[in-house]
């Protein structure tokens, strides 16, 4: 058994966890995720596996960013007054010039 196996399993679990809120539904996400992992089940070269793990971690980071943006946009839509926001942004820019 490859010593990288625990890392792969941990990555799979983390991706499953972050996929709970996938816009197209958890089922959709889980199926895709499973297929993506099965596709690489025959990798034996540790460098190749490492590369695949890195890719998985990249996808994870992207999803994290996606959730953040989704929440941030919803919050802005509900709680930020555009006119007021524009004024503050302009002020902050002036600050930075000083």
């Amino acid at each position, binding site marked *: 058994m490859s010593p990288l196996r625990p890392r792969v399993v941990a990555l799979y679990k983390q991706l499953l966890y972050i996929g709970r*809120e996938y816009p197209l539904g958890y089922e959709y996400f889980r199926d895709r995720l499973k297929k993506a992992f099965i596709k690489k089940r025959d990798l034996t070269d540790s460098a190749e596996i490492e590369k695949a793990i890195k890719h998985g971690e990249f996808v994870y980071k992207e999803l994290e960013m996606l959730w953040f943006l989704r929440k941030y946009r*919803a919050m802005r839509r*509900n709680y930020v007054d555009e006119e*007021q926001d524009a004024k503050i942004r302009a002020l902050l820019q002036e600050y930075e010039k000083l």
Partner: protein
Amino acid sequence: MYARRGFVLAVSSEMSLRVLVPVKRVVDYAVKIRVVGGKVDTANVKHSMNPFDEIAVEEAVRLKEKKTAAEVIALTVGPAKSQETLRTALAMGADNAVHIEVPEGQEIQPLQVAKLLRAYVEKEKPGLVILGKQAIDDDAGQTGQLLAGLLNWPQATFASKIEFADAAKKILVTREIDGGLETVEAPLPAIVTADLRLNEPRYATLPNIMKAKKKPLTKITPADLGVDITPSIDVLSVSEPPKRVGGKKVESVDELVDKLKNEAGVI
């Protein structure tokens, strides 16, 4: 010698700051709110931590990472399920959690929450309390201000930046006000409420959620703190916002003028 010096640094005054972060479990921001029988439907609806409180937790955790704060305590008032919210706060980096448990379905209003917080603060004496500026369920935006009033502590609300001065004995807070920014200075202990621009909260990852299960969580009741939680405000009615009415096409200018006059009543 070196080890000893390190020790002295660790107990210097700026490391003794304890930060209390009260958090609230609310209906998730992405859920479409429905009113059933004169009440917001909360059964079988996804809940999560109030996003403004996430910002407050993040700020407290960053203070700890910068070694300005020694300890971050997350606290919530709510039914048994509110523990999930505390776990999220712990997963984000809070050190320990306090759950003030109230029966499921019991309504708790800002004044009662503020009284509970006052009782806790007087017992545990944190040096700084950071709260979200409002909760996205009732949008009351009162708890921080009420708590400051009850404790007679300085308050800096709607913070978009928090800085420390005077060996962490004073805070400088940039606030968002109408048409601009204002910087206020306050001695500690103080109350700060977080606005959207303060920071970008981190995601509570699965490994951290698992680790959070081992962190200490204390359960107490309002009675332990000697606070009566009977609501002081009567809610008269709860209703959904009016449904959007579809547009109509008009055939001629005359018809438009007629509709504006007689239907819309604008001219």
